[in-house]
């Protein structure tokens, strides 16, 4: 009986479900993060590399809202500037991952046939790879390390995952009546892909994109923590936590603030991604 109840047009639950206030709080926090990272130079912040030896390992105060580190650098400023690395890697890697994986996945699912068979086989073999170890390996050999190389390596590593999600999403939609109708009308493949399929897989793509960014940012944080990301003194959340661990006993603030910034950022991304997924009623594999 419950089966019959669930049979709807698929549009009602979309409106019935609310995004909720917490969703907008998260959107607000993320926007604030992004704006602060972009306009960090214009904000009234101390230079993140400036070492003031008069205030070493100071706790939070009015002069230094989040305190200073063991070299007298302002933590607030370093947290804000450090977010640039996370955001650059997160968005850059996902641009590469979606830039390659999404067209391939859509094309494979729309065309089917041999192209689909070959691409899917290749991607599944790549997926079996422990991506994190491959990323660490390539980054450690491909010297000297730059932010761009890290973005490229992580981005390429994410292609098979993006491909898999987009392909299965497209498969479901390519069989819908309106796609067939468009085909009967004689629309070109390009038009069907861009005008019919793309708008309909966009919700899935967006929610997956957000969770993907969170995963990539976590990965970059772990790399930075291991000393395999951008070189100090350039601050990043990961390398701030890494540097702070040696003076953890004297100055716990040093560990807590970048950790908190990173966790809040990830929590917001995951929450928004998750909410969008239920909002658009998408049941899809996670990155």
């Amino acid at each position, binding site marked *: 009986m419950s089966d019959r109840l669930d049979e709807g047009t698929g549009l009602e639950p979309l409106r019935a479900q609310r995004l909720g206030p917490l969703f907008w709080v998260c959107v607000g926090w993320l926007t604030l993060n992004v704006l602060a990272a972009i306009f960090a130079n214009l904000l009234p912040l101390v230079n993140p590399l400036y070492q003031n030896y008069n205030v070493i390992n100071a706790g939070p105060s009015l002069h230094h809202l989040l305190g200073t580190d063991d070299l007298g650098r302002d933590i607030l400023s370093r947290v804000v500037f450090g977010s640039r690395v996370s955001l650059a890697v997160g968005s850059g890697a996902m641009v590469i991952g979606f830039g390659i994986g999404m067209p391939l996945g859509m094309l494979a699912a729309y065309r089917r046939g041999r192209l689909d068979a070959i691409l899917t086989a290749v991607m599944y073999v790549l997926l079996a790879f422990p991506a994190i170890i491959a990323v660490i*390996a390539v980054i450690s050999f491909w010297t000297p390390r730059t932010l761009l190389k890290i973005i490229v390596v992580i981005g390429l590593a994410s292609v098979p995952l993006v491909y898999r999600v987009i392909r299965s999403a497209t498969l479901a939609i390519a069989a819908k009546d309106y796609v067939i109708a468009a085909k009967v009308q004689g629309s070109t493949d390009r038009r069907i892909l861009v005008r019919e399929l793309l708008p309909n897989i966009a919700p899935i793509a967006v929610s997956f994109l957000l969770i993907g960014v969170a995963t990539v940012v976590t990965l970059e944080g772990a790399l930075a*923590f291991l000393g395999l990301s951008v070189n100090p003194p350039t601050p990043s959340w990961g390398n701030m936590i890494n540097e702070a661990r040696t003076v953890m006993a004297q100055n716990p603030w040093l560990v807590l603030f970048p*950790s908190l910034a990173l966790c809040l950022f990830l929590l917001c991304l995951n929450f928004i991604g998750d909410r969008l997924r239920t909002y658009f009623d998408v049941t899809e594999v996670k990155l």
Partner: protein
Amino acid sequence: MLKYVLRRLATLVGIVFIISVGSFYLIHLLPGDPATVILGTGASPANRAALYKQLGLNKPIVEQYFVWIGHVLHGNLGTSFISQTSVASTIRAAYPIDLELIVLSQLLAFAGAIPLAMRSARKPNGLLDRLLSAGSFTLLSIPPFIIIVVLVLIVSIKLGIANTGPSSFVPLVSNWRVNLTSMALPSITLATASFVLYFRVLRSDMIATLQEEFITMARSKGLSQRRIMWRHAFRPSSVALLGTAGVNIGGLLAGGFVVQYLLGIPGLGYTLISAIASSDYLLVQGIVLVVSVGVVVINFFFDFLTSVVDPRISRE
């Protein structure tokens, strides 16, 4: 069943081959002449000749691969020019620590996730379920390297509990009590990440299973709640859990790198990171090869387990 296993085995061999090509090629990602990068500019001609022979560097690249894979298949991963020890013996000394870490963390994760997921699934959207779901969602957003740092900060620095902090590691064979104490924080850290995954997967599968007709049937027969949960509902709900666990092992190893690095536990992760720091490229190559193959083999094993729990998978 046999056909299924053989087919999976063929895929496994293919993937291991590709991993070996990838690991082999890593050396050629180095800028310039690999011998100069590996040995440094002031290397003696004898060392250079030894490395050329070891890697077959003067041969064409395809032939180099076969020279290299020939050595690897004989258990010879080369000799590190930094520490003058064989890569294979370094790896052999390190990997039991990773195994211990994985076993301990997985025991903790399953011991926590399975009963809690079952409890949660019995009353979806009940108070416990809501609390656990919110808690696990929050934990999902905390990377392992932050969990371990915070744990160390609280347990070994603030509370001052002995043998839990950095460089307190003692091998299992020399003193198991101290060993387990020093492995506690890293195991808990890795267990937390796994727990969250397992809890979420098992909970949603249990909720789905409990709505099946055979559960209603079991209830109407008057079976006890416990028997229904463990004997009837658990097995059909655990397929996705096993799949997740298999995939999670790869992430677990990487998480292991982080905790080992922070606490100075000399497992593969710690060895890998120090090898990268000292440009010990042959050691890095060896560890990457061994760990990647290990992950793929573990995935294969869990795939196999899944098909044992749900034989339909192997018949498709």
